[in-house]
């Protein structure tokens, strides 16, 4: 638990020892088999788990880490979890002797100061040994838990000053010893969680990991452990080579980007994230020097493992999607995270909200920087929402309920060169299914009044950002609502001359004399019948708006994504006809004239 430990956790690991030569086809067959094991594990968990965030939102991830702690196989979850998974396991690997590791064991870890992301992300993992008793691989499975036993339900505490406020931190704890569940340890975890459904989620995670280890053992039996080691080495080498070849094709130079967070949870303004990406031959270096390191900031501390992971999430979006995501990417990229800055906090800092901010601003800044060398694959893989509006109350039996507010909506879907923003999220989040009104209202005393796209809320550009949604919800019983609002003063960044996205806005007690906008944070007791309304930020544009195809602007107006006024003012497009009659058409001469004026100005 120190900067020194983080350096050891992140240090490059050597290949697995094997003298076996492997051909590329066998290597890809074994890689596919391991990928399938990860798929099986996540599928199993998604079906068996109880919490909406796992079984609906699919916020889970399976990965296979090798005996040296390298990411051997990432899988089906979200990149934001995939690239974080190996450091928790690495810490466990360092304790193999002390903690008496052996076949049939299952462990859990979530501690941000021991390689973890933030406390809600439980990483359950199990070692797999070969016939000679040598450790070969570790199956890891992460899932975001609905609670962590800290001060506030859900694990997000706005005024947390240390990790202990946020809940139970677990560096490495054995849950299953040689195939026997440790009832004492499992009971301890269940006791430290507000939700009864946690027991089912944990059982589902353990079950899924145990099932996966059986499959991995069958792969070891079939191919022999040495061949599997060779396949892992081959896959990691290949990804490193492909990553380096990609970087070689980029123009050498240093590309900087600065992105600000509106404020921390206490109101300190303009928190800075600074990224410098240096391309030198086949070496990419991402350096966060210059990032805010004021030690009195609250709520904006992103853990070491998360910062590395989110940087890699954006880099992975910027390269050929077919390059296999594994340790090879980390081997090809140097990441510099200055000690003590908000991207690499000292031990015991609170960590929960850091996975929102500055994690997303780090990702966004990497995107802005890399957009200068890889414009065709640049779109920020972020969620700029401060945090979702969680609504918490108690039912007649005293049982707590929580509507986490991960509702259907669109936010932060920026355009990429040649394609308008579309759908409800950036692609890397495309595995997370959003909550539906009919599921939520059947469980919680809320009514979803509206969640439609808002006209003109997509950033203008040659390719347009997707508009954001306005989600309006009525609470039928007294409840507490929590919020942290950012991305109002600093919405998502436009690229290549495209406009920024639009600001987030959040109003409580809508339609009453007590209506107010949440500008910083809220932890409000709302009366029955209260209405809350969340305007999500639209995505940013790519390229200058005046270059947008006028016909595309006309279509946008017909779809009420863009107003007639904005077509004229932002895009320089003059339309004739009427929206009411669907008779709109571009006036080419007037449009050319108006655009000419704008460019001259």
């Amino acid at each position, binding site marked *: 638990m120190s900067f020194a430990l983080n350096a050891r956790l992140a240090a490059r690991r050597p290949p697995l020892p094997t003298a076996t030569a492997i051909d*590329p*086809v066998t290597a890809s*067959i074994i890689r*596919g*088999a391991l990928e*399938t094991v990860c*798929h099986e594990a996540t599928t*199993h968990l*998604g*079906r*068996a788990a*109880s*919490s*909406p965030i796992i*079984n609906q939102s699919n916020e889970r991830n399976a990965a296979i880490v090798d005996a040296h702690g390298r990411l051997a196989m990432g899988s089906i979850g979200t*990149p934001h979890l995939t690239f974080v998974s190996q450091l928790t396991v690495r810490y466990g690997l360092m304790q193999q002797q002390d903690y008496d590791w052996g076949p049939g064991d299952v462990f859990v870890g979530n501690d941000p100061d021991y390689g973890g992301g933030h406390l809600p992300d439980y990483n359950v993992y199990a070692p797999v040994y070969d016939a000679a008793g040598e450790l070969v691989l570790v199956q890891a499975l992460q899932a975001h838990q609905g609670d962590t036993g800290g001060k506030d339900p859900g694990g997000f505490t706005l005024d947390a000053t240390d990790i202990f406020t946020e809940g139970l931190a677990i560096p490495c704890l054995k849950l299953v010893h040689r195939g026997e569940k440790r009832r004492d340890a499992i009971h301890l975890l269940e006791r430290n969680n507000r939700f009864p*459904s946690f027991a*089912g989620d944990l*059982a*589902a995670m353990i*079950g899924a990991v145990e099932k996966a280890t059986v499959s991995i053992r069958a792969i070891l039996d079939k191919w022999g452990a040495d061949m599997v080691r060779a396949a892992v080495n081959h896959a990691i080498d*290949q990804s490193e080579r*492909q990553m380096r070849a990609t970087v070689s094709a980029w123009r050498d130079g240093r590309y900087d980007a600065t992105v600000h967070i509106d404020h921390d949870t206490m109101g300190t303004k303009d928190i800075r994230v600074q990224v410098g990406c240096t391309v030198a031959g086949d070496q990419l270096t991402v350096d966060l020097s210059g990032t805010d390191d004021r030690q009195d900031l609250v709520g904006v501390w992103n853990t070491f493992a998360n910062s590395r992971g989110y940087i890699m999430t954006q880099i*992975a*979006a*910027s390269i050929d999607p*077919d390059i296999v*995501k594994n340790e090879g990417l980390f081997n090809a990229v140097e990441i510099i995270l200055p000690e003590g800055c908000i991207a690499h906090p000292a031990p015991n800092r609170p960590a929960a909200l850091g996975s929102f901010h500055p994690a997303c601003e780090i990702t966004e800044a990497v995107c802005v920087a890399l957009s200068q060398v890889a414009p*065709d*694959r*640049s779109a920020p*893989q972020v969620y700029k929402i401060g945090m979702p509006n969680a609504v918490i109350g108690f039912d007649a039996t005293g049982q707590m309920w929580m509507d986490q507010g991960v509702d*259907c*909506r*669109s936010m932060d879907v920026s355009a990429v060169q040649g*394609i*308008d923003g579309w*759908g*409800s*999220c*950036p*692609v*890397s*989040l*495309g*595995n997370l299914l*959003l909550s*539906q*009104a*009919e599921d939520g*209202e059947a469980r919680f005393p809320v*009514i979803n009044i509206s*969640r*439609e*796209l808002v006209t003109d809320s997509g950033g203008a550009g040659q390719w347009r950002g997707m508009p954001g*949604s306005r989600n309006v919800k009525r609470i039928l019983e007294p409840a507490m609502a929590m919020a942290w609002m950012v991305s109002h003063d600093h919405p998502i960044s436009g690229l290549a001359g495209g406009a920024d996205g639009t600001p987030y806005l959040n109003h409580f007690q809508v339609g009453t004399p007590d209506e107010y906008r949440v500008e910083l944070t809220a932890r409000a007791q709302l009366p029955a019948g209260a209405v809350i309304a969340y305007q999500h930020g639209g995505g940013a544009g790519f390229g200058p708006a005046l270059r947008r195809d006028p016909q595309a602007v006309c279509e946008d107006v*017909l*779809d009420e*994504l863009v107003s007639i006024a904005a077509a004229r003012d932002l895009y320089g497009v003059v339309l004739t006809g009427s929206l009411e009659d*669907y008779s709109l058409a571009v006036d080419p001469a007037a449009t050319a004239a108006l655009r000419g004026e704008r460019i001259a100005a």
Partner: protein
Amino acid sequence: MSYRVGIDIGGTFTDFALLKDGLKDGQVILHKNLSTPQDRSIGVMEGLETLAGKEGLSLGAFLARCEAIVHGTTVADNILIEMDGAVTGLITTQGFRDEMEYRRGYKESIWDVRLEPPIPIVPRRRRLTVPERVLADGSVHEALDEAAVREACTRLRKQGVESVAVGLIFAHVNGDHEDRVAQIVAEEMPGIPVSLGHRILSRAPEYDRISTTVVNAYVAPRVNAYLERLVSRLAEAGYARQLMVMQASGGVMTRAYIEAAPIRLLASGPAGGVIASARTGGAKGYRNLLCVDMGGTSYDMSVVRDGAAPAEAGWNMHHRYLVGVPMVQVETLGAGGGSICHVDKGELKVGPASAGAAPGPICYGRGGLRPTVTDALLMLGILSTGEGFAGGSFRLRDEGVAEAFAALGAELGYDAQQAAFDCWRLVNANMTQAVRRTTAAKGMDPADMVMLAYGGNGPAFAAIQAQELGIGQVLVPRASPTFSALGTLVAHPAIDEERSCSARADALDLDRLRGLWVDLAANAAAHFAEAGFAADAAQARWRVAMRYAGQNWALTFDLHEGRGLDDLGFVDDTLSARAIAAFNARHLAEYGHVRDGEVPEITGVRLTAQVETPMPPAGGGFTAPVVEPAPHGYRRANLGDGFADVAIHKGPDLIPGARITGPAIIEEIFTTIAVYPGWQARVDDVGDYLLVRQS
């Protein structure tokens, strides 16, 4: 003599299976002719005329003797592939205009920032909202604003809308508002078909239901027009009965039933093959089957469990749209005989691009220049240039094949033979992993199953894949190349519908449950009557969907099974305890644990009803005396262990009792069966092959 005819229309061929009444132990008569994409009913009529001729009858006399014509078609799928369906509009609840755009956040690739959006069926300008709101308990929170509905109709009319979907929130609990909207649309937009959410898919959540309804509205006019055309051609030619149509759920139903929800046809194409598999396997005593169908461009996988092909209603993404009606689950991988082998960034890849039928593999000699899986099989000697291919319609040629693999090998640093062998290994591995993903999603272990291989290319790969998957037996029916047409004759008339209801399993309102089942039964009885079947001829499975509170995926299982549609005696005071016990047993089997002390909840009731109709003969057994036939000849082939002289057998010469020990190759009329080293092929009493692993 009376007849039953099964017809399956594919991209290239229209397949026919003719079943004669009273024909004992006889073969089903098979026929194929080219499909007629401009109007598929033309190809159907041509084939029927040929069949009539074979029977020595005029078309009219033949059709007059047809008891049933059963039809499987990809017409709905083709609309979604070409995206040329009706101009569709959506009327939805105020506040929920953009669900089709959000797709619940789903995107098909998480790594490709250049992923394009799906082509919109209902662009935003044709998604209109009306004030109204029903709550979770079915109560009306806000009355329907009828003037707003009329206004929406006006706007849709201005946009030339040809088909209207109505998707209101919680309509599956209370469908009154949707019904009223339908009445108003009928007044305001006469003649325009309307699809209602609570009729098309009566369950939560809203995106699943609305998306399914929108896709239904999109395909409905063309599917119905096609069926109408076919029905009138058949009627004019002398067919007096109802046309029966294959559904994705694996049952067939009348054209009139399909007309109300033509979405049920989507993905019905592969369902026939799966149904035939269940029947063929079941007749031989194999109740858990892994069915693999490898054709020219795709590899379809499905599972038969306990003798049935379960139709699941869930997150079925088809052609980028969610379709939630029950479907026999068929997973597709872009791997077939025509899949192109290529090197991408230094790595060998097979597919998903396919050479298709034109130009086809190099060895078809029709101008194909890129090496395919079929070419690799030729290089390996599994196929040969010696005999007729695909039923003798043409011969394979080897010109250019070795050269193409040499070029491929040069990129990888080895020779042509190694390149072909690696293509074979890779396509094998891709298929094996796809199977594992499919079975994983169902919580099943392939090692517990028998593989059933069909399609032109399936039997060449089946045994080696089975070995990788730990499977010991592979069934290859002699009729496997035309399995889907056979399947339409195997499929029974069936209705499978569900109704939503939500309650703790220990606090069930039995009257409400009974009421929902009575509604489902009445609906089924009416449609069966229309098809000429009595309600008491129906076999009913009364089912529930249950889950633990908080779970998102329900497990559906039978509570009672019996003849007739009024046998509701099982709804009694013990129902709750029986349901909970059955659910816990299923949960333990699927997920390996049970939540002690938690009471599960019911999320819906379902009625699966079917009427038995005569089926093609099926059987099995190994009572014939064992013979070990001499090979027809030998050729150099590589069945995984390097080149050797491999025995070649002619399938049509093999009689029941024949045993052939691998390595060997059996050349059937429409397919080639590879008997790999360590395997033995046995011909059973009805002439089908069972491949058995010896070691």
